[in-house]
């Protein structure tokens, strides 16, 4: 198993952001975590990326505990964050060299590896231009190339298509699908339900709890309101039609943690 989550939970100022979340993910599988704003998606990803320590329960990635073996876990994950995390004064080559150093990728063969990553991302022709002038799609492709440079077993994508045009989205999903076919496990969060549908497993988080975990077909069958129900029907029937933003004590703590 690439991910084993057992009763994972985390509170902020006494308010549970995530509680008792359990799931597993095998190599080559993909899973989407969906849920209304404030459902606990980012907190769950925060714990799996070792940035947040769980209050209770445990999570293992490639056999390493996220709380006590953070460094080992970081070697096995690639992360694509919701917002751009590129230094726009650097070129793609420098960006990847920086990442390679942080991940301890051996210098021998690094040049070829970087060239291959840039070729894969379609950025060879701009490899020596600073990132500042890149389009949103180009930046996203560079970030994806960066997140897979150290050949992680698990790729974590936090709302990866936010701000991308339809072509950019399509291109990104084609590349993610390519990585999955190479045996990488994919875990993502998204608000775009059509994107979640392409994943083998979908988990629905609501008020910090994983209230449903199944394939798209099973979810629509079990929770849809009609015979030809969509994932959106199942989602709304499970989480309600009211706005779900959780504010108060939780939000500032989350914002701090995510910063």
């Amino acid at each position, binding site marked *: 198993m690439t991910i084993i989550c057992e009763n994972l939970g985390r509170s902020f100022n006494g308010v549970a952001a995530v509680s008792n979340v359990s799931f597993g993910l095998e190599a080559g599988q993909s899973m989407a975590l969906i849920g209304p704003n404030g459902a606990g998606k980012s907190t769950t990803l925060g714990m799996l990326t070792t940035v*947040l320590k769980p209050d209770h329960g445990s999570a293992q990635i490639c056999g390493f505990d996220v709380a006590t073996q953070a460094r080992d876990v970081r070697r096995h994950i690639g*992360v694509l964050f919701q917002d751009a995390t*590129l*230094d726009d004064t*650097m070129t793609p080559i420098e960006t990847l*060299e920086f990442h390679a150093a*942080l991940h301890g990728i051996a*210098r021998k063969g690094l040049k070829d590896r970087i060239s291959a990553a840039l070729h894969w991302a379609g950025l060879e022709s701009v490899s020596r231009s600073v990132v500042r002038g890149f389009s949103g799609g180009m930046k996203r492709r560079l970030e994806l190339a960066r997140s897979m440079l150290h050949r992680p077993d698990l790729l974590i994508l936090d709302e990866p298509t936010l701000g991308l045009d339809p072509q950019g989205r399509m291109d990104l999903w084609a590349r993610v699908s390519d990585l999955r076919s190479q045996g990488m496990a994919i875990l993502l969060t998204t608000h775009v339900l059509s994107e979640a549908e392409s994943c083998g497993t979908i988990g629905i988080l609501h008020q910090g709890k994983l209230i449903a975990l199944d394939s798209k077909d099973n979810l629509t069958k079990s929770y849809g309101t009609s015979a030809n129900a969509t994932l959106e029907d199942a989602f709304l029937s499970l989480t309600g039609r009211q706005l779900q933003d959780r504010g108060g004590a939780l939000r500032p703590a989350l914002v701090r943690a995510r*910063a």
Partner: protein
Amino acid sequence: MIYFPARFATECEDNLRIVFVMWRREMRRYLADKSQIFGGFSRTVLWLLILGFGLGATLREIEGYSYAQYILPGVMVLNVLFASLQSAFGLVKDQKLGLLRQVVVAPAPSLSVTIGKLIAGATVAVCQGAIPLLFAPFVGVQMAVADVLVAILVMFSMGIGLTGIGVIIATRLNGFESFGAISNGVIQPLYFLSGSIFPLKGIVGGIGFLDIPLGLREELRNYGIYAIGGGWVVELPSWLDAIVRVNPISYQLDLLRNAILGFYQLPQMLGLSVCLIFPLLAITCATRAIEKIRQT
């Protein structure tokens, strides 16, 4: 000959690479940010030339040095202070733009990341601190190459320490807007309370000592003569003197002044100790601060 185990050698190389890429990124930013270099020059002109010659016209001489000469090391320290803290505060910008997340989720040891950041901050600090040295001939200060090297080492040590303090503060802040408050609350007290613009004790106001040929002046100083043609002895109030003596920057500034002017007022061994201990302490505390933001 010592043979290191292969794994240890690889780990050392990996850590040095992290330090290098952190340093390179910071230097690239520094070179791209012309405003910081402009700030270094404008501060130097304002303090050294305008204040130095302006106030110098009233004070005449301090311990046999013109006021502009006396504050030259202080202006270098001011540039080091600004550059170090500004470099450290880049972390806040990194945090805001999400750039820090890339470092946070990487397996790189916090110590290497911190050392890279601090060495980069110190390098920028040395570059900025060296700007007033370019003006040294205009204020009549002559320096040997060895003196310049000592000055660079002292500024580097100061830069590591101050960038470390900056990192500790930056990891606790949410916005870059606080830089103004930090400037008033940290940079200015450290600067003014380091003896940068006034002596702890000394003869002020003498006229004519600077007109004596340099060699003879040095000889007179060896006999404890710092002024001719009048002047008065000034001494800081004891409370102010005590504050200056607990400020680590005072000792480093004193070493700098000794290297540049050959004049010092504090125990030089203590200054050397501060130059060694201050950076080590800063690296330790800044690493803990970075470690804290990596897993909360």
